[in-house]
């Protein structure tokens, strides 16, 4: 694999926590890989599995999703529903041949800017380590 390989990563971040967490990382000037393209969503519950499938279909190398910690969802229950979907979707992706390292779901609060950057860095490294996705995957 070439050293220059830069994976394309799509991040879905909940507006109320993880997105604010990413913001905090920015204002605190903590650096993290710029491979992630962030899409702000109102709640992790807004992330339809269709979004995830579509990302991979359009050529994303990895998909990263982060929402409020269980119990902290702005809409009270959004992430409780969402995590069930995410678990099933993750196993389906793996079953269809998309390595499970390419897909990660995390809980990140608005104050966890540091944690956010660590997670994203580790995820980016993991995805980069896999190399580009196989033809037709």
């Amino acid at each position, binding site marked *: 694999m070439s050293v220059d390989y830069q994976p394309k990563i799509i991040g879905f971040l909940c507006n109320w926590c993880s997105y604010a967490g990413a913001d905090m990382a920015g204002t605190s000037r903590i650096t993290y890989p710029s491979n992630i393209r962030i899409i702000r969503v109102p709640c992790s519950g807004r992330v339809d599995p269709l979004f995830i499938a579509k990302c991979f279909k359009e050529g994303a190398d990895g998909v990263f999703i982060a929402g409020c910690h*269980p119990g902290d969802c702005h809409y009270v*229950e959004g992430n409780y*529903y969402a995590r*069930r979907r995410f678990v*099933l979707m993750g*196993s389906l992706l793996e079953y269809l*041949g998309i390595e499970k390292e390419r897909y990660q779901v995390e809980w990140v609060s608005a104050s966890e800017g540091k944690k956010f950057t660590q997670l994203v860095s580790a995820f980016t490294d993991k995805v980069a380590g896999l190399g580009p996705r*196989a033809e037709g995957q």
Partner: protein
Amino acid sequence: MDENIINQIREKAKELLSSGTVECVIGYEAGTDGMTSRPAFIYEASDVERLVFDNTCTHNLATYLINKKTNKVAVVVKPCDARGINVLLSERQIEREKVYVIGIVCQGVVPVSWSGSGKDLQMRCKLCNQHAPVIYDFLIGEPAVEPVPTVSPWTSVAEMESKSSAEKTDYWNKQFSKCIRCYACRQVCMGCYCKECFVELLDPEWVGIKIDTSENSMWNMIRAFHLSGRCIGCGECARVCPVDIPLGLLNMKLAKEVAEHFEYRAGLSAEVRAPLATFNKEENLGIGE
């Protein structure tokens, strides 16, 4: 053919139709190949002689209830199809008062194609541990001791799971590339009742009209996902696929995940919500540790 079952179906149908209890009885009749059965819609008591039942009655008639919501109808169901009725009830798609369920204690059905049927039972029947319907108004047959399946439902799934990512990709690409997007799998499924399916949405267009591996994969993946925790394993989708894509292997994977994570099996009760329509605060499901 079991004359006794057939006679009871006909008698019941006659009674329901002549008393005006139901508008229509959805059952099975002989098909044009003279070998296999097909769905039948009987509106008049004088037509009940058309009704039959045998081991080629593979169709899941619960599917048709979605189109028959106005007046009360009766429907003949096998135990697997009966679970489909529970799914529709729990999702508030049909009203209990408007369906008269004629349940059959089933001995299994065989693989069926036009002008031919197999001898061995269908896979779902080999896996079946419930030969009496979970829901009925009138039961035909004696519920005997419930069978213990000799095959494990997850064997083929585990085999696929054990393959490498490259092998899996290869396998599914080959399968999905055959899809001609006839949507027969969706149309025969009792769980696929959306008025507008995601695959046909124009704005946003999730799946393009191009019939190619990439678009087809999107279709096949999300079709299966939308049925996770709702698929009752009737196997109709795979039966009707004209290009023989093993859709059951996808559905079973999700059924396995649902069983493992949520200890749930679709259709056992009309009172319980499907796993993706509810949650449990205490579970952590391995996310964000």
